[in-house]
């Protein structure tokens, strides 16, 4: 088959909006995702990330605006688009009564793979998800991390050009998350386009080439993790705690140190190019914080700066 190799975006959204009655979940966003990119939607719960993902995966129709996936309109070509997508939903929807392998082969058949092809593909994916030893086990007793890996493996069954992951590591323990990230990183290296939502900063920094920060259904910033940090934050952040003294009361005394100071309920964040110099200045002013932490700026700081709120409350 003749196929154009082009820079045509896999996902193109213009003024995309989703409303449920009076509630606006997605409020006119513009997004473009190129082939091979790892793209993230970052934001707190209720920011509109999942609603956007549901529209991209063609199970929710836009209320207004334009949306094209592989250049096609989900309202018209939903089935043809879904044939080329891999979807890893936020809630696991594996068949608990079926074995790990049967979950893969059954799903493969939905995409029209022959039985032999489905078996072959299942073997490959069991390997990929490191579940070969669990192939015959029922899904029910598997750990959360294994179920997630199986869900991601299942999303790969049709060799998709675009994989959608809705909060892939929410609820997993750190070890399971790292294994999952490593698997996703491998997909990324193979050239698979990944689009994921997350409210974890470290996840976005680990996996995304480019991301948008969403809040209240809108995109409030866009760029690579590094560029976002450079634009909206400083190189370093000093976290100061003052025991019984309220951060809001102390923030006046920090004036002039670093670029700005943000009082949070339990600590003050001091944004500065040079953390150690800032700490020295704090001490010189006779302030005695109960704890001091100098760290590099993260996306969490970007988010805090953009929205005035932390990501995970």
């Amino acid at each position, binding site marked *: 088959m003749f196929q154009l190799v082009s820079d045509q975006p896999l996902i193109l959204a213009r003024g995309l909006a989703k409303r449920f009655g009076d509630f606006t979940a997605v409020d006119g966003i513009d997004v473009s995702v190129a082939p091979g990119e790892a793209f993230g939607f970052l934001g707190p719960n209720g920011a509109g990330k999942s609603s956007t993902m549901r529209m991209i995966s063609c199970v929710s129709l836009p209320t207004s605006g334009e949306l094209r996936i592989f250049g096609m309109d989900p309202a018209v070509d939903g089935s043809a688009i879904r044939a080329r997508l891999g979807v890893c939903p936020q809630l696991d929807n594996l068949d*608990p009564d079926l074995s790990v392998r049967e979950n893969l082969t*059954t799903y493969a*058949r*939905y*995409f029209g793979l022959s039985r032999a092809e489905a078996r072959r593909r299942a073997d490959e994916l069991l390997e990929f998800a490191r579940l070969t030893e669990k192939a015959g086990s029922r899904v029910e007793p598997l750990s959360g991390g294994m179920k997630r890996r199986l869900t991601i493996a299942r999303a790969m069954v*049709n060799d998709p050009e675009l994989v959608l992951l809705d909060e892939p590591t929410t609820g997993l323990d750190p070890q399971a998350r790292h294994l999952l990230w490593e698997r996703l990183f491998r997909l990324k290296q193979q050239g698979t386009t990944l689009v994921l939502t997350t409210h974890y900063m470290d996840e976005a920094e680990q996996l995304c080439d480019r991301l948008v920060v969403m809040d209240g259904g809108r995109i409030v910033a866009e760029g690579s993790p590094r560029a976002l940090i450079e634009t909206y934050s400083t190189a370093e952040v000093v976290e100061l705690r003052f025991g019984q003294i309220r951060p809001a009361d102390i923030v006046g005394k920090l004036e002039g140190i670093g670029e700005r100071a943000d009082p949070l309920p339990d600590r003050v964040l001091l944004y500065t190019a040079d953390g150690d110099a800032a700490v020295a200045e704090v001490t010189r002013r006779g302030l005695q914080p109960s704890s001091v932490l100098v760290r590099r700026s993260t996306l969490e700081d970007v988010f805090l700066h953009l929205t005035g709120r932390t990501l995970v409350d």
Partner: protein
Amino acid sequence: MAHPTVAVLERNLTVYRRVWRASVMSSFVLPVLFLLSIGLGVGGYVGEVGGVDYLAWIVPGVLAVTAFQMAVGECTYAVLGDFKWVRSYHAMRATPVAIRDMIAGWLLYILLRVEIAVVVFLGVTAAFGALRSPWALVTPLIAGLLALSVAAPVTAFAATIEHDTYFALLFRFVMIPSTLFAGVFFPVEQLPDVIKPLAYASPLWHAVELCRAATLGGAPPWPVLLHVAYLAAFAVAGLAWAGRAFRARLQD
């Protein structure tokens, strides 16, 4: 390339292969027990109904009611569960499987289950000498039509509700009264005139009369085509309802 409907049917059969033991009793053993206790036990006192011994008279009724109860029972918790707890329909929704494939694949599965149960039952009753006409061979077709006419609307109902307590209402106010008053165990003519229309309204009664005409070799009370059309109308309306219910649940 396998049709997506076939893929959905396969999935349902794969799940069944894992859980089939639980259904052996209700699908195969219970109908025969019913037949023995009521047909032989009660039949011993009743003697003949409509010119045949009572056992031969209730065989077609029990056959139809087996299909009826399976179609109702299998399409309740299983369907609601696949939306609410397993979310397997949501999983299918992310693939090229269309909503019509989900419904068709499900109903084909129910049809297969019903046909197997009915054919086994037919074999057992033939051994009792309760089949009096070669037309008995068409009863699996009638049972299949009945199963579709009931399974389609019940599937739609299960796809509509949010809580399984509604099933108790379905069992109490639809399934049990139908079973008791649709001409399975005694002729509908015995019912008071005010209640008769309720029996006629039930798809079960139409299937019972068709099956009885087939196994005993007679004519049903209404023209055959009318009975069949009534069942078909239920199936078609149920399919349309199911399509709307699935769409409402899976797409916004």
